């Protein structure tokens, strides 16, 4: 006769959980870890034009990157843009997320949809929209000149400003949605308690709201920073050829120059820089507010 299985959830002794983890684990291993390992191996190879790459075991590609002010400048520019975009996303996103989280309006769902809506449109399409707005005869310049504010078109396209605006527009919904879900979980009473004890709004925010929202701030910052560091379509379309960042550099090294070893090295440097800066910023924020 069959026996009853009355083992509580999560109790070891059966391979159920492991069995369920197998597909995802294999997918991650095959789809992520193996390609990363292969890419790292490629980055240690040598490059000869026409031969794609030559088997070797050298760190020359990494040395080339760090010894060349041009590549260091590209990395620095990428970090600068990513940090600026993340800070602006946090500054713009927090008040918006707070209002969304606290509003009692019956239109709250519509407001959330309005935040999510831009995500329905691809990055390249949104960048194309900005191109129309920023061009020398685009919406902004035509408006400014039409109103007599400027006499000649402003150079917005193919500048750092255009890229920063474009990336903020892409990343802001991620920041807002992440923050909103965390702020919603903070009991409104703790804010009221701070006010009732005489804390002005800023003090309440600094001493109560921000520390409690820290997990959301961290998640939002990490998400937007990683997205900004690895941005491709926006820098290419709004920054133009002169504004070179790491994402497009990886692509051009691989796909235009067919230099896979150096492309592999650039990819790893981008990945490592993103990881280090993400961990560093997380530690910094934790130390500041935790």
């Amino acid at each position: 006769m069959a026996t009853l299985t009355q083992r509580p959830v999560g109790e070891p002794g059966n391979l159920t959980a492991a069995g369920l983890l197998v597909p995802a684990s294999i997918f991650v291993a095959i789809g992520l870890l193996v390609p990363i390992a292969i890419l790292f191996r490629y980055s240690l190879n040598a490059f000869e034009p026409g031969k794609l790459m030559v088997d070797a075991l050298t760190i020359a590609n990494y040395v080339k990157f760090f010894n060349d002010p041009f590549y260091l400048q590209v990395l620095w520019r990428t970090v600068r843009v990513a940090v600026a975009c993340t800070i602006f996303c946090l500054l713009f996103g927090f008040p918006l997320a707070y209002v969304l989280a606290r509003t009692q309006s019956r239109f709250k769902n519509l407001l959330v949809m309005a935040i999510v809506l831009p995500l329905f449109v691809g990055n390249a399409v949104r960048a194309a929209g900005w191109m129309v707005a920023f061009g020398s005869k685009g919406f902004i310049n035509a408006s400014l000149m039409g109103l007599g504010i400027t006499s000649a078109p402003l150079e917005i396209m193919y500048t750092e400003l255009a890229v920063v605006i474009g990336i903020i527009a892409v990343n802001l919904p991620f920041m807002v949605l992440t923050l909103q879900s965390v702020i919603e979980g903070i009991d409104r009473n703790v804010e009221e308690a701070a006010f009732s004890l005489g804390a002005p709004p800023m003090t309440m925010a600094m001493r109560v709201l921000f520390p409690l929202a820290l997990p959301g701030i961290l998640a939002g910052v990490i998400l937007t920073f990683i997205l900004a560091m690895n941005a491709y379509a926006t820098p290419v379309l709004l920054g133009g050829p002169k504004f070179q960042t790491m994402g497009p550099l990886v692509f051009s090294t691989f796909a235009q120059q067919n230099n896979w070893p150096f492309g592999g090295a650039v990819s790893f440097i981008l990945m490592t820089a993103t990881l280090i800066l993400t961990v560093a910023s997380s530690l910094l924020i934790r130390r500041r507010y935790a």
Partner: protein
Amino acid sequence: MTKFTKGMDRRTTLKGMGLAAAGALLPAGLGQTASAQAAGRVVVGTWGGDYARLLAKNVEDPFLKPKGFEVVQDQASDAPRRAKMVAERRLPRGTTDIQGLSAAQMFEMNAAGVAEPIDYSKLKNAANIIPIAKYPYGVGHIISGKVIVYNPKLVTPAPTSYKDCFDPKYGNKLGFIDIQYQFVMLAAGLAAAGDMTALEKGKELLLAAKRGGARIYPTNEAFAQALKTEEISIGMMWKARAVQWQNAGIAVEAAAPSEGTMAYVSGFMIPKNAPNKAGAYAYMDAMLEKGAQENFAVDMGFGPTVTNAVVAPDLQKRIGFTEDENKKMRDLDYDFLAKNDAAMKEWWDKVFKA
């Protein structure tokens, strides 16, 4: 309480499903190994977009399919396709039969040892091919030239030489295309010293133009947009593109440079390990057919590479070159280009674009 029998319980079922899904993942990539190609199947590597569509319309559908060929297009930009050919070099059977590349890229593939020498006796249209499109390692399909493009309303008198395309007097009305760095640098050499390989002298011209405020656009399309909005008024581009832009209503004229127009030839080569070389030759012959070439001239604005194609005089005037211009047309020094490309690209990125 609900009873579940051992071996049939929910957890075991879920576990089984999980393992089954995992098992299903494993052979997913393995089942895709190249199956033996049926006779008459031709795999053609090509750029996507209009070119791929027009190959189907003007070459594959009218000339190959009626003969029973099954044509499969492997669409990608040229760099990954070149990388694939080099990566497959050691395999006895590659995955493509014929590859569409520019003349410079065909040269590079030949230098890398992956191009099958062309046996022109296997091409019934071989006798019609114009000399500039006949390479030992590939055959030209379409031809155009790098000409001066300008807005006739804003640039007077009309430019006549490549040198005009680097003149700082045009300031920020002068535009270059990033992905065309090779031709721009070679044109600068021609303009500065009458020699495409005079890179150093050409660089001086380029830097002077840059100091004057010249703009750089990422793509051909961005350059066209800038011409349309009159952000720029002069630059250089394939004559075929100028025709397409004129058709799109952009105020642009093309002028052949007095230094001699640099030729742009795009064609096809056969990888050494192509599984169906007979099919590849059939494809080449089809692309050289009179009708196919004439339709490409109409649809794309590129000139034919066969002598028997007849292009209407008004179209010929727009897409082609005069007898004198044809005489002065210059083919590129592909060997020089292959050896210097990496250095050229590095200078372009680090110095000119910086």
